[in-house]
C-alpha cells in the first residue's frame, strides 16, 4: 500500500498495464517526453520507449482515429485528450467509429481503447477547461463511461478499463487530482494523504466497471453522485447532519441500477448531483430511471442539483459550481417534499 494522489494512481495504472502487456500504448498531446500537462504519464516514455508512449500532433480526431486503427490492429491504446473540453473534434471518431465498430462488423473488428480526459471545474479554468461532458457519451451506445472519485478507484478502474474489450471513456475530475475537494473552496486544500481512499494498493488490481460504491450509508435520503460531487455530497450531509446515503456511481455506463434502486427504495427520497449543465445531463437519465424503478417508493420528487445551463464562467465559478450549500437546500426540499 502507498499513499498516492489521483495523478500518481493513474500513472501507476498506466505503468503496470504497460509493463505486463506490450500491446498497451499511450499517446496524446504533450504526453510523451513531458508526461502530460497534469503529469499523469510522466516517466512512461523514459521507461517504455518512444514507440510505446509518445506525443501526438494537436488533433483530437487524429488521436482517437489513430487509436481506433491501432485497436483494430490489436494494440490497446490509452489516449489522453488534454481537457474534456477539447474532445469535440474527436466526437465523430468516438461516436460514429469507436462505439460502433464491433457492432457494424459483427465482431470482426473491435475497439479496445481507453480515452482519458480531465473533466470538471473548480480550478478557475473558465469555459474551456471546466466542462463535464459525460452525458454526451452516455447517450451513445457502445461506449462505457467511467468517473473515478479517488486514487484507489482511479487506479483500479483504469486498469479495468484498459482490460475492457470495448471503448471506455475515462473522465478524470481534475479538481480531485491532488485532493478530495469537497466544495468548500474557502477552506484549505486537503491532500489525498489524509484520506483513506488515498491509500492505494501497490500491485495491479481492478475495480469492476458497472459497480457503484456506497460512500456513506444512510436512511433519510439517497444521493446519486460521481467524481468531485461525491465529496461535495458527503460534505453537505455532514454539514447538514442529514442521514444521507451517498452513492458513488463510479461507472455511468453500464450503470448499477441495482444499487441505486435498492437505496432509493429504502430511503424513498433521492437527490442527484452533477457538475454538468442540467438539461439533458446524466442526472436526467438517473431521474428517469429512479422514477421508473422506484415510483411507488418515492415520497418526494427527485431533485437535481447541477451546473446551470450556461457556459462555465470564470469569475463566477463558485456560483456555478454545485457546492455543499446548494446540495443542502436540495436535502431540505426532498425531506420536506
Amino acid at each position: 500500500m502507498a499513499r498516492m494522489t489521483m495523478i500518481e494512481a493513474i500513472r501507476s495504472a498506466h505503468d503496470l498495464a504497460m509493463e505486463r502487456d506490450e500491446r498497451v500504448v499511450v499517446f496524446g498531446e504533450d504526453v510523451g517526453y513531458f508526461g502530460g500537462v497534469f503529469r499523469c504519464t510522466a516517466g512512461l516514455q523514459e521507461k517504455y520507449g518512444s514507440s510505446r508512449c509518445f506525443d501526438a500532433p494537436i488533433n483530437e480526431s487524429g488521436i482517437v482515429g489513430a487509436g481506433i486503427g491501432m485497436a483494430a490492429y490489436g494494440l490497446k491504446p490509452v489516449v489522453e485528450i488534454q481537457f474534456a473540453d477539447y474532445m469535440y473534434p474527436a466526437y465523430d471518431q468516438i461516436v460514429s467509429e469507436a462505439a460502433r465498430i464491433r457492432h457494424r462488423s459483427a465482431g470482426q473488428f473491435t475497439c479496445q481503447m481507453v480515452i482519458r480526459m480531465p473533466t470538471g471545474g473548480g480550478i478557475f479554468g473558465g469555459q474551456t477547461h471546466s466542462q463535464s461532458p459525460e452525458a454526451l457519451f452516455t447517450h451513445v451506445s457502445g461506449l462505457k463511461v467511467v468517473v473515478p472519485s479517488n486514487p484507489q478507484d482511479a487506479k483500479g478502474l483504469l486498469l479495468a478499463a484498459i482490460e475492457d474489450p470495448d471503448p471506455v471513456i475515462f473522465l478524470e475530475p481534475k479538481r480531485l487530482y491532488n485532493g478530495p475537494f469537497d466544495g468548500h473552496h474557502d477552506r484549505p486544500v486537503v491532500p489525498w494523504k489524509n484520506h483513506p481512499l488515498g491509500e492505494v494498493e501497490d500491485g495491479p488490481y481492478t475495480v469492476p466497471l458497472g459497480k457503484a460504491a456506497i460512500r456513506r450509508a444512510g436512511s433519510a435520503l439517497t444521493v446519486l453522485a460521481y467524481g468531485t460531487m461525491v465529496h461535495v455530497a458527503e460534505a453537505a450531509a455532514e454539514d447538514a447532519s442529514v442521514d444521507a446515503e451517498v452513492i458513488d456511481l463510479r461507472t455511468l455506463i453500464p450503470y448499477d441500477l441495482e444499487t441505486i434502486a435498492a437505496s432509493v427504495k429504502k430511503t424513498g427520497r433521492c437527490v442527484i448531483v452533477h457538475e454538468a449543465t442540467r438539461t439533458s445531463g446524466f442526472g436526467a437519465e438517473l431521474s428517469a430511471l429512479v422514477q421508473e424503478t422506484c415510483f411507488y417508493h418515492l415520497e418526494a420528487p427527485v431533485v437535481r442539483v447541477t451546473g446551470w445551463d450556461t457556459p462555465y464562467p470564470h469569475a463566477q465559478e463558485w456560483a456555478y459550481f454545485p457546492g455543499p450549500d446548494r446540495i443542502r437546500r436540495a436535502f431540505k426540499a426532498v425531506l420536506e417534499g
Partner: protein
Amino acid sequence: MNETVSGPRHQPLQLHVPEPGVRPGDAPDFSEFEIPRAGAVRRPGIDEAPEDMRDMAFSVVRVLNKAGEAVGPWAGQLSADELRAGLRHMLTLRQFDERMLRAQRQGKTSFYVQNLGEEAVACAFRMALEDGDMNFPTYRQAGLLIAGGYPLTDMMNQIFSNGADPLKGRQLPVMYSARDHGFFTISGNLGTQFIQAVGWAMASAIARDTRIAAAWIGDGSTSENDFHAAMVFASSYQAPVILNIVNNQWAISTFQGMARGGAVTFAARGHGFGIPAIRVDGNDYLAVHAVARWAAERARAGLGPTLIEHVTYRAGAHSTSDDPSAYRSKEECDAWPLGDPIDRLKAHLVTIGEWSEERHSQALAEIADEVRGAQKAAEANGTLITGPHPSPRAMFDDVYAEMPAHLIRQRQEAGY
C-alpha cells in the same frame, strides 16, 4: 448591407463559387485536362527524396497507350496470367454490379452502389498488396474484395441483409467488412477511415511487424477534416500507409473542382506534408498496379507514406438513390478521355497475343454463370423483401462484448 464600410479605394469583392464548365445540355469538354502520353512519366527510385519528386503530382502515370501496348518505365511488371486474372476480376465486378443493380430495382434490397468505370483502381491495387495488409475502404472499392477472392455469395448475403449476412442485417448494403481479406469495416461517415488506416499502420510499426495499410477516400471526401488528420499523422510518424484518393470527378452532384479548389491536382495535397504524391491513370490496370507496388515497396522499406491520386470517372450514378442526369451532361461519360478500364486491358491482352474475342466471350459466359450462381445461393438465404433476416435479437448483440443489464432489459422489452 448596412454594415458595409467600403472605402472608396477598393473595388467590391465577389464570391467565387467553383462550377463545372459542363452541365446537362452542354457539350462535354475535357480539353483542359492534360494527359501525358503513356510511358512519358518517369519512375523515381522508391527512396528518392520527397522534395525531388514533386513533379509526380502534376502528371499522370500511364502505361497502356492507344495501340494497346504497355510502354515506359512503369511497364512490364505483370505476367500474362496476372493480367488475365485482373481482367477477370474487373469483368466479375462489372457483372456483379449489373446484377445487384437489377436486384435493387426488383426490391430485393434497399440500396446499391456500383463501381462502373472505376474497376481497375481497386482490382489492380489489391494485387500489389500482400496477405495481412489492411485496406480501409469506402463503399466504392468492392474490387478489393473480388480481386482478393472474397466469396461473391457473402457479398450478396450482406447486400440482401439475409439470414446468412455476415454482418447480421445491421449494415446498409455494400458496407462490407472482411477482416480475413484485409478489408476494414466500411463506415457511412466519409473520411473517418483515412486516419484509422494511419493508426493501423503505426500499430504495425510499433509492433515491428511488416504489414502495411492502405487508406481510401473519394475526391469529394478529401475535403473532410479527417483527411488532414491522416496527412498529419502519416507525415509525422512516417507511417507505412498508402493514401489513395480516387478522383472519379464527381461527389454526388458536386464536381471535383469544389474539393480541389485552387490546387492543380489532388495529389498536390501531399506536398504540404512532405509526402510523396503521385497521379496515376485510374483506368489503366497496369499503371495502377505499378504505382501501387511502388508505394507498397516504399511503405515496407520504412520510407513512409505515399499519396496516390487515381484519376478515373464515375461512369454510373452515385448510388441507386441518385440520378446524375439532373446535374451532369449525359455525354460526359463517353467523352471521358481515359476510356474504359476493361476495354483497355482487354485490348492490351489481345495486342500482346494473350487474349482473343473468343476467350473473352467465353470468360464473360463463365463469369455470368458464376455471378448468377452466387446470386442464386445468396437468394436461397433470403432477400431484404422476402426474408428471412437475421433476428432482431441480433441487433442487441455486439453493442458490447458482453451485454450489459440495461440492454438485456431492453431486449426483453422488445420481446427477443
